[in-house]
């Protein structure tokens, strides 16, 4: 490597500090707002550091009582978990056999490429017929209806990720299992899936983040506590007549916590998945 001049080293550290501040400051400010007393947030100019810690918004949002913001918010968290959980489980269930088939029969890979293209479709292009279809099936304002739609978003790209994982598993292992008389499903379950565990968990977490983030379909297809997800619930809180910005911020912090934790835990896998899968494709 080239030896760096002191001026350049100084520049690198200054740029790194600037980048770090840019990345963290907005999220940190969201947190500060969520624990600042309402009077601090309504000061002109703002009081940047809270006079005292105010945790009342978190108490309000996390208390389950009839006809409260807390109940709305907690049921939205529950719905988000249910919908995302069901959609991710179903996506993996359809993606595992499909990914294995494409990985072992490259002649049908074009079919997966066609399915990946569905990613280009704007959700608005499907929204009206989906609305009518869900209404006909009685699945409007239902976690099952929403999970079904999320399944169609998650399944193609989950299959794609799994396929690149399966590609790395040598075929000899399956041949050996076949000689020992294992059926296809046994080979998959006993030989392939354990080896593919890392890519399976990456795909599942990716899918979970995507499902948790979804807003458009949830906005259209859910109406109340039975099915509203957390993205719709915080949009409601932010769009309502609530004068306390700290409450909006606290709801944002709580909704962001699970994906931020997942992101922090799997940062290496995310980068590998985004580049590895993307570059090879």
């Amino acid at each position, binding site marked *: *490597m080239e030896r760096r001049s002191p001026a350049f080293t100084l520049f690198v550290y200054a740029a790194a500090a600037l980048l770090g501040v840019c990345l963290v400051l907005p999220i940190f400010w969201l947190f500060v707002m969520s624990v600042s007393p309402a009077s601090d947030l309504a000061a*002109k100019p703002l009081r940047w550091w809270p006079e005292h810690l105010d945790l009342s918004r978190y108490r309000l949002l996390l208390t389950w009582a009839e006809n409260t913001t807390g109940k709305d918010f907690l049921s939205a968290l529950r719905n988000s978990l249910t919908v995302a959980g069901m959609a991710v489980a179903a996506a993996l269930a359809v*993606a595992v056999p499909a990914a294995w088939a494409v990985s072992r029969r490259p002649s049908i890979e074009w079919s997966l490429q066609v399915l990946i293209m569905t990613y280009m479709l704007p959700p608005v292009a499907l929204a009206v*017929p989906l609305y009518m*279809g869900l209404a006909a099936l009685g699945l409007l304002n239902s976690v099952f209806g929403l999970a079904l739609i999320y399944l169609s978003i998650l399944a193609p790209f989950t299959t794609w990720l799994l396929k690149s994982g399966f590609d790395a598993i040598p075929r000899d292992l399956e041949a050996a299992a076949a000689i020992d008389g294992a059926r*296809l499903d046994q080979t998959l379950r006993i030989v392939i899936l354990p080896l593919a565990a890392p890519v399976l968990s990456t795909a599942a977490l990716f899918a979970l983040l995507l499902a948790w*983030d979804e807003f458009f379909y949830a*906005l259209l297809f859910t109406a109340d506590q039975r099915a509203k997800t957390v993205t719709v619930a915080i949009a409601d809180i932010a769009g309502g007549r609530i004068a306390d910005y700290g409450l909006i911020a606290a709801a944002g912090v709580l909704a962001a916590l699970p994906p931020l934790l997942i992101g922090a835990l799997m940062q290496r896998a995310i980068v590998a998945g985004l580049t590895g899968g993307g570059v090879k494709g």
Partner: protein
Amino acid sequence: MTSTRTDLRAWALMLPLLVVILGVVSWPLASTVHLSLTDAGMAARSGNFVGLGNFTRNLGSGAFRAAFVNTAWFTAVSVSAELVLGVLAALLLNQEFRGRSFLRALMILPWALPTVVNAILWRLIYNPEYGALNSALYQLGLIDAYRSWLGQPSSAMMAMVVADVWKNFPLVGLISLAALQSVPRETLAAAIVDGAGPWARFRHVMLPYLAGPLMIAIVLRTIEAFKVFDIVWIMTRGGPANSTRTLSILVYQEAFSFQRAGSGASLALIVTLVVMMLAVAYVAIMRRTALRV
């Protein structure tokens, strides 16, 4: 085992996935195509066949053209800014310095923050009375009165672009960083020995490795940006004076607010076609440049 039999088995394993996509994507899409040729409303679903009437009327309307320009502007400015900032961040993170892996870990945060939370966060920052931006600029003496950043057509779109760029440039940065790290050290060292300056090293040594992954990132970001809905809906709902109304918002309003399902469907298909043309154009450019670099 014959090849046809294994092919059949492979198709059988694909079947559940195919059924899901046929039922939840292909059928609705076909249905949208059908709707777009009718004057159906949301309540009475069977409309009269009007041929390409919806398309010609919408393509000629001022609302469509304004939304198209807004969307194109949003896409062009955000994606270019994300590209430049992303590559700069990657070049920085490719240097050796203390705290580098921590900084790289921080790059995940904006990407992992839910889109809706990001939009709400920036709406709070831009708040005309109590927002952090107003307060900070005022205290620094850069403005002498609070402004309504999202309330004025002149600044609303730019404010939204900033929020989108903040969330998405780290992703471009991480993809670029992974590409930069695949540049062989010997090649780079040889270029330095040969007296290549920083720009020549970037252009002739790093860019060939960067081009492919970066192109994929640009295609994905462009498609996403052109479909933008969430951030606009939360921050401005297309206002003020429709200055931030993008195509997805226009389709939503046409189909669900004004209950014109047929007309909304035709608009949605126009958006889909534009996105597809963008993707095809990018892939063509990518193939051509891949030969050149």
